[in-house]
Each structure stands twice: as structure tokens, then as C-alpha cells.
């Protein structure tokens, strides 16, 4: 594979709003270039994980190298870097973009531009990428390609006059896309004879090869034996193998040179050493400065994860360790809860990331997990001048020791058809949003800008947004910083005993509402027991809401004769098993489900 001319390489990604057809177009490109026959194609080659296919989103960046014979008779090498499609993974997206010279912007011919279209587009423009608009789903009866073209020109300011009109699903006009990749997207530049400078845009852990680094070479050469050095983490290792990406497989090659995209292995054991965004150089001949844009991503959302069966604590630790090998943004540390026993406080990039990890633990590692309510990182300024970062509500100092607290806020952009502006604005209001402004994108659609506390959007904001706009609103946000806020710790007492796993930090104004809803929900989830159980929500020593689970009045087998005994005993055994799975808090048995049920309070 060595000796490819830089002028024949095209490095690009595809950006789109969720569901606008990113993965489908990627599949068609791979199929058209003959890398795989149609039969070999599993639907959406690039979405590898079962979970990704189910949810229709890309979680990990995927990359594939394709050879395309263009109409000019020349063969071109395409490196298609598929980016994660969710705001939780914005940083990963930005690093993937940094590895490219161009981006295909897909816009749905029926839906037009959405919040993510814009956010991703701006991100691509920030990286000076050549953006190549493509209008997808023109086979839909509701397609309005001309309107969408005008939208692209008016809103983003891109020339969309010769944007290919395609249907990725039906394989319509894919040729045109391929040709435009050749003609519109610039070839990489960079000097092969300069010292090595390569960007890490992803890394995965493989049990045979160790860490596999996905990289874009900007300058120089990397090959077997190169002593590579990661500038930010300072890790060093000798390269064992380099290669390029086939569809679903790694193809080793001699060397990777400036302009190429490929992988590097170096018997590294942990992806922590190869952070996304870091620069690889040659330890013996280092480059002057690192590539711009590296940052260490910090988790934004935390929650407790506990094994449903306490004896599985070790298994949970092993599973988290394995997942972390592949996911440097996942953090965890051991913690103990009175109610839930031994578990871990885990940090995630966002709620989707949390859900993905939880699902993978359950599916791939067969663990039953109880999670506590997700929260953000609060800054606590103590009266003694100390500043604490709190990720577990139980660690909050007593109110007398707190000078003030800060919470993270995001700037959010919400795109919505004008008829729903009112209801979306009141939603943002309820979530303590600060209105920053509104722009009409065209007559029927508006872009709302809000500043919102992160803890108000991590639960169910997205669901609420969808339901209040009949699915039309789209949403994107980025972390803005920390702001002072009046926050309190809301405790839940069951039968007068505080249940630590149910405590959480909430804004003082919404504490009553939250407390009331939690009590109502818990009342539904906690089965009647032999005595009456008060459920209380309290801030400090003040009870702000109360519900009662009445005492059980009847649980008796009316009949039990000779022929029934075995069967009735089995019924009792089943009942006993069910009880065993519950958590004991004081005298009260609380089903695992109850801990999770309070995560979604706004269902009703």
C-alpha cells in the first residue's frame, strides 16, 4: 500500500442529523466501490456494535479505506471516517473531523436542516473542512429538494446548487457523490520528510494486539520499529504493526506516510495512554509542537452502579475495567451505599453514554445493574475556603459548611417548527433555562438559544422536547461553564430511614416538585408490607413531601390440601425468591426497580 500519491487520497467524514441517513450512505459508498459485495454487506457495515445497529446511531468512530476508480480513469483511495452521532460524543466528533480534509453533509430532503446538522456543520467549518452537501431521501413522497437546497444556502451559506440528489436507501445517484468526493474534497498535504506528527482520532483495545490506535498522519512516516511517543500522555512504545482499514478488518502495510489514515499497534495495554486528540510523534525525532485541539475529556454525568446481586461486585469491577480499556472517557471508583451495598461511582460523557455502558454491562457481561439517579459534577465552596467537586450527593458537606455551590450550565440550540415555539419555551423555562435569543431560519422554523443547567437536561429533557413538539424539535448543546446556584440535597426517608441511594442534589425551587413526584413514584413501586411505611422527602430536617404505603392486609392461601402442597410450596418459594432480590433498608424491602423508577419522573 505504500507509494500512494497524496494527490490520490481523499480523507472525509459524513456529518448529518440523526436519522438523516449517514450510515446508509456510508454503506452504499462501500458497496459501490466494490469493497464488499451486496451479499457480504451486513446492513450498515460501520455500525459494528449490536447496540449501535439497534439504536441506529454510531457510538464509536469507525473508519474504512476504499479504492475508487473515478471517471478520469485514475484510482483514488478514500478514507471514510464515520463519526459518532450524538452530542455526548462531540469531542470525538471534533477529533474525527480534524483527521479529514472534507465532509459530506447529508440533509434529509423532507426534514431539512436540524439542530445537529447545524452543530456538526459549524464544527466542520471550524476545522476548515470542505463541505459537500448531499440531499438524501429524495425518494420520499414528502421530499422537497429545492426547498432544502435553499435552506442550505440561506442558513449555512453553502453553495448547494450542484448537491447530489440521492436516495442512499435505494442506491440512487451514489456515483455522483463518489465523483464529487474526488473533485470537491481536497487531497491532503503534509511532508513525508518532516518529523512524525499524527493525530489519534480513536483507539480500541484488542485482546491479541493490545491497543489499536486510529490515526491520521499529518507529517512524516510511521512504520514497524518506530519509537512512538504520545505528546500529551508522554507514553512511549515501539510500533509493532501499521496498516489500513478494510471493511471490518485490519490490513497490515509497510508504512503510513503523510496524508494517510490507518492504524498503529504497539503492545500498549490501555487506551488511557492513547487519548483521542493526542499527537503521536517519533521519540527519537520529535516534532516541534503538538497538533492543536487536544483536551482531556472529563465525565459530565455521574451515577452509582451496583450489582443487583451483591456477590457479583467483583464481576462488575472486571466488566467495567474491560469496558474502560476501550473507552477512556468512562471513569469509575468504588463506593459503598447503605442501601445498595458495594458498587461504583461511574462518570460518563452524557446520559446516552451512561445508558450504553449500562446496556453493555447487562448484555455483554450478563450483569443485573441497579443505577442511582444520574447527577452532574457540582462545585462546593466551603466556608473554610476549600473547593470540592461533588459527584455523589451523599458526600455533600452539611449546609452550615457550605459557602455556596456552582453547577454546570450548557448553551443549547433547539430547532423547532414555529407552532411549537411556545411550548418549547415554557419547557425551557420549567427547566430553569435562560433565554438567549431566537432566530427564524425560514418562515416555519426557528432556532432557540437557551442557557440551561446541565442537571436539568440529563434526565429526560430530550424526551420532553420530543413529546412537546410532536417529534419535530431537535437539540444540541455544549458545556459553557459553571455558575452559582441555589442547590439543596433532597433526601428520601423510607420508614424514617434515609436511603442514601435515593438522595440527589436539586435546585431549591424545584425541590418540592421533585420530592413530591419521587414519593408518589416510590409509593407505586414499594409493595405493601406487614406494617405501614411512610415515604418522606426531606431537605435537611424539613420534610417537604410524604406518602404512605399501607400495611398489607391479605396474603394467604385459602386452600391447601394433600394434592396442593407441592404446588403451594413452590408458590411460596417463588415469593421468597422475589423477596430475596429486594433491597433491605431498615425493616423495609425495596425492589431494585424502585431505585430505577425515580430516574424517569416525568413519564406521566
Amino acid at each position, binding site marked *: 500500500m505504500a507509494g500512494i500519491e497524496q494527490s490520490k487520497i481523499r480523507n472525509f467524514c459524513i456529518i448529518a442529523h440523526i436519522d438523516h441517513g449517514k450510515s446508509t450512505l456510508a454503506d452504499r459508498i462501500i458497496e459501490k466501490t466494490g469493497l464488499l459485495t451486496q451479499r457480504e454487506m451486513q446492513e450498515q457495515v460501520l455500525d459494528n456494535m449490536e447496540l449501535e445497529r439497534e439504536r441506529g446511531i454510531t457510538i464509536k468512530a469507525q473508519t474504512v479505506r476504499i479504492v475508487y476508480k473515478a471517471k478520469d480513469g485514475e484510482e483514488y483511495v478514500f478514507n471514510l471516517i464515520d463519526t459518532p452521532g450524538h452530542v455526548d460524543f462531540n469531542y470525538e466528533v471534533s477529533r474525527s473531523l480534524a483527521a479529514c480534509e472534507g465532509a459530506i453533509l447529508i440533509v434529509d430532503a423532507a426534514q431539512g436542516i436540524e439542530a445537529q446538522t447545524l452543530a456538526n456543520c459549524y464544527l466542520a467549518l471550524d476545522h476548515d473542512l470542505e463541505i459537500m452537501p448531499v440531499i438524501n431521501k429524495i425518494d420520499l413522497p414528502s421530499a422537497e429538494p429545492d426547498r432544502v437546497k435553499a435552506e442550505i444556502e440561506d442558513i449555512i451559506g453553502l453553495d448547494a446548487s450542484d448537491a447530489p440528489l440521492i436516495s442512499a436507501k435505494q442506491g440512487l445517484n451514489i456515483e455522483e457523490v463518489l465523483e464529487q468526493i474526488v473533485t470537491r474534497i481536497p487531497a491532503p498535504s503534509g511532508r513525508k520528510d518532516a518529523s512524525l506528527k499524527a493525530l489519534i482520532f480513536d483507539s480500541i483495545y484488542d485482546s491479541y494486539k493490545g491497543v489499536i490506535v486510529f490515526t491520521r498522519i499529518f507529517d512524516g512516516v510511521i512504520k514497524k520499529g518506530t519509537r512512538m511517543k504520545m505528546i500529551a500522555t508522554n507514553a512511549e512504545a515501539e510500533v509493532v504493526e501499521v496498516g489500513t482499514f478494510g471493511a471490518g478488518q485490519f490490513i497490515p502495510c509497510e508504512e503510513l506516510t503523510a496524508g494517510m489514515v490507518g492504524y498503529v499497534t504497539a503492545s500498549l495495554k490501555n487506551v488511557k495512554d492513547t487519548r483521542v486528540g493526542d499527537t503521536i510523534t517519533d521519540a527519537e525525532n520529535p516534532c516541534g509542537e503538538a497538533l492543536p485541539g487536544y483536551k482531556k475529556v472529563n465525565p459530565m454525568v455521574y451515577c452509582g452502579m451496583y450489582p443487583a446481586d451483591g456477590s457479583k461486585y467483583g464481576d462488575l469491577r472486571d466488566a467495567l475495567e474491560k469496558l474502560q480499556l476501550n473507552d477512556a472517557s468512562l471513569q469509575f471508583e468504588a463506593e459503598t451505599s447503605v442501601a445498595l451495598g458495594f458498587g461504583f461511582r461511574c462518570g460518563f460523557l452524557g446520559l446516552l453514554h451512561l445508558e450504553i455502558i449500562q446496556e453493555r454491562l447487562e448484555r455483554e457481561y450478563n450483569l443485573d445493574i441497579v443505577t442511582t439517579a444520574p447527577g452532574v459534577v457540582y462545585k462546593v465552596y466551603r466556608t473554610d475556603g476549600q473547593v470540592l467537586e461533588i459527584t455523589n450527593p451523599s458526600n455533600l458537606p452539611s449546609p452550615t459548611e457550605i459557602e455556596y455551590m456552582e453547577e454546570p450550565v450548557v448553551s443549547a440550540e433547539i430547532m423547532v417548527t414555529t407552532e411549537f415555539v411556545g411550548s418549547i419555551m415554557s419547557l425551557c423555562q420549567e427547566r430553569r433555562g435562560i433565554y438567549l435569543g431566537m432566530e427564524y431560519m425560514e418562515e416555519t422554523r426557528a432556532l432557540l438559544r437557551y442557557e440551561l443547567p446541565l442537571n436539568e437536561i440529563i434526565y429526560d429533557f430530550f424526551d420532553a422536547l420530543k413529546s412537546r413538539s410532536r417529534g419535530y424539535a431537535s437539540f444540541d448543546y455544549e458545556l459553557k461553564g459553571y455558575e452559582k446556584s441555589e442547590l439543596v440535597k433532597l433526601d428520601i426517608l423510607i420508614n424514617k430511614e434515609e436511603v442514601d441511594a435515593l438522595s440527589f442534589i436539586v435546585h431549591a425551587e424545584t425541590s418540592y416538585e421533585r420530592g413530591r413526584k419521587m414519593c408518589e413514584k416510590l409509593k407505586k413501586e414499594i409493595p405493601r408490607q406487614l406494617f405501614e411505611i411512610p415515604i418522606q422527602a426531606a431537605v435537611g430536617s424539613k420534610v417537604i413531601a410524604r406518602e404512605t404505603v399501607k400495611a398489607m392486609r391479605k396474603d394467604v392461601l385459602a386452600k391447601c390440601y394433600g394434592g396442593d402442597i407441592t404446588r403451594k410450596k413452590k408458590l*411460596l418459594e417463588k415469593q421468597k425468591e422475589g423477596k430475596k432480590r429486594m433491597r433491605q433498608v431498615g425493616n423495609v424491602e425495596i425492589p431494585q426497580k424502585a431505585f430505577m423508577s425515580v430516574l424517569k419522573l416525568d413519564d406521566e
Partner: protein
Amino acid sequence: MESRSEKRELSIYIHIPFCVKKCNYCDFLSFAASDSQQERYVNMLQKQIISQGQVMSQYKIRSIFIGGGTPSILKADQVDRIMEAVNKACQYRDSFQQNEPEVTIEANPGTLTKEKLRVYKELGINRLSMGLQSASDQELQILGRIHNYKTFRENYDMARELGFQNINVDLMSALPSQTMSSYQNTIEEVVRLNPEHISAYSLIIEEGTEFYKKYAIHGESKELPSEEEERDMYKMTKKMLESAGYKQYEISNYAKKGHESRHNLSYWTGIEYLGFGLGASSLLNHVRYYNERNAEIYMEKIEKNQKVMHIEENLSEADEMAEFMILGLRLTNGVNGDEFTKRFQLGIFEKYGTIIKKYQLLDLIKVRGNRIYLTENGISVSNQILIEFLPEND
């Protein structure tokens, strides 16, 4: 102790799986069948009974219970042949002189005749168990019963006339559309008839029944009484029956003094039993068995002299201790600590002290002398307590 003989006591159960029509709440092994099917079944039943003569001869027969289904659906001569077989196998009639065993047949109103009753009497059947369920014709219809209250009255009077001096009447509460007052009326009617024994069951919606389809699948139904009403009915039963001279001796059973069902007491006190007929259970020598549950296979196997009795569970000592408690605590007298020690060479408090104390504190269990029993509130939530006695299975 009733006897000084070394022979252990045995209760015999004979299952007749036939009904005119299956009731809407019934999950028992029963169905409608043709005359020829019934005849063949009776023949096979006789054969199974006689084949167990060897086993029976090692015991002293304590009680015989012909249950169903509706045993009274059988012709008089069929019952005669069944009892002849029993007598041939264990000579139960010989014991009549010293200590008459309790011999019960279940009878449903609408299937009894004078002739049948006369034959029962001759065969030494000395107890009738009659399924009334309700004195309200509307409720009987909802239950899918084939009789009305009047038919029951006629059958009951007929039995009395022919000299049956030990009759049980089955009642049900918590029925769809039933009210406190309609149920009160049922109890009043029955008390007036003055049977020796009354079983009063709270309706259980069992899987696989018509009621299950109608009431259980769609969650709580408005037609069914609430948990509170159900408990009120239960308490009313006890109050009314006790003031009429019946004493509660088990969760759902009431009797006049000396008329507690010996047969049913066997099940709750760990006495061995031998079951004949389709699906019947046996408990012999620490093993619980069940008979073949498919009628065709059952009859075919007997015809071919093959085994129809299968092991259901081998009871370990831990199992037997658990059953001692779980079944014994159904009785208002509860369990006897000395009896426990005699059987298991272990003090009952040594074994279950923590559990007993826990529920004593909640006033759900009481200890008096060597007796441990559930309080009225304890009975209402007894499953919660009984599960504590189950052995750990790992």
C-alpha cells in the same frame, strides 16, 4: 393417642375427575366425560386400589375421602365397586367396631338421589361434603354452578332424612358482584341448616380458569371485592360462625365440637396419605408422589399393569421441618413444640426462635405453652410468615 397399635395411620384419597360441567373458578383436575369413559375409569381405579393392598395393610386406616370433580356424578353401583375394592385392599370396614374411620364423599347438588345416598350409607360413608358456595342464585350463576339454592336445600334435606349426621357445606367469599350483605345472607341461610362442618374459602383466581381470563388478565376488576372488603368478609365469617357454635380450626375451616375433618387434618399434621385416581397425591415414608395426570395415559398404564405413581419430591428432614411449620400454622391451634422435638430431636425455638420472635413482636404469632400459632392478623398475611420457614436451597 387413639390407639396403642404400632401401625402408623394412613388417610386414603380417591379422585373422581368428572363433572357435569366445569365451574368458572375451578382449576382442579376435572372435566365432563361420557358414561363409557367414566365406566372405564372406575374399572381402572378399582385395579389401582387393589394393587396397593400390600402398602395399605401396613397401616391403620384413619380416613377415606372420595373427592373430585364431582364423585356423586357416579352411579351408585360404581361407588359401590370402588368401596368394595378399598375394603378388599384394606378391610376398612373391620375397623368400624373399634374406631370408625371417617369416610367422606363430595357431593354436588343436582347429582344426588335417594338411591345414591342409601348406597353411600350402606358402604359406611359417614360424612358428606356438599358444594353450595353461595345461597344467592345470581352468584351461583356467575360461578358457573349447575344448581340453584333450592336444589341444594332439597339434596341437603334428603341427606338428613336418610340419616347423614356429619355434613360439610362449602362456601365461597370474595366472589364477583358479591356484597357484604349477600354474603351475610348466605352464612345465615347455612347456619339455619345447621351442618356439622363449614368450609368457607376466599375466591382465588387461578390460572387456566374462566375467571382468570375474565378477571386476572386485565388487572384489577371492579366486580371483584377489594382486599379490604375481602378481609371484612373473612372476619364476618368467623364472627358469625363462632356465635353459631362453630369453631375455626384452620384458615378456611369451621366445625362444631368434635366434627373437625379428620381427613383434612391429616394433610396439615404430617400424617401419611395414599391417593388413588388421576393426578392424586400420596405421602408415604418421606416421599411425595403424584399419579399420572393425563386420563388416557393413566388408564392405559393401569391396563398394562404399569406404574402410574411417580415421585414428586423426596422430603429431606429440612423439608419436613418446613412443612411441619407451613402446614401446621394453618391450624388455629398452630404447631406443638413438643411434637416438633419428638419428630426431629430438635427444639422448635432452637430451630426457628428468631423467626418466631420477629413475628411475635409484630403480634402476628403467639406462643402459649408449647403451642405456637398465628393470630387473626397473622393468618391474613400468613404467606409472608410461612416463607420464612422454607429451607434455603443453596
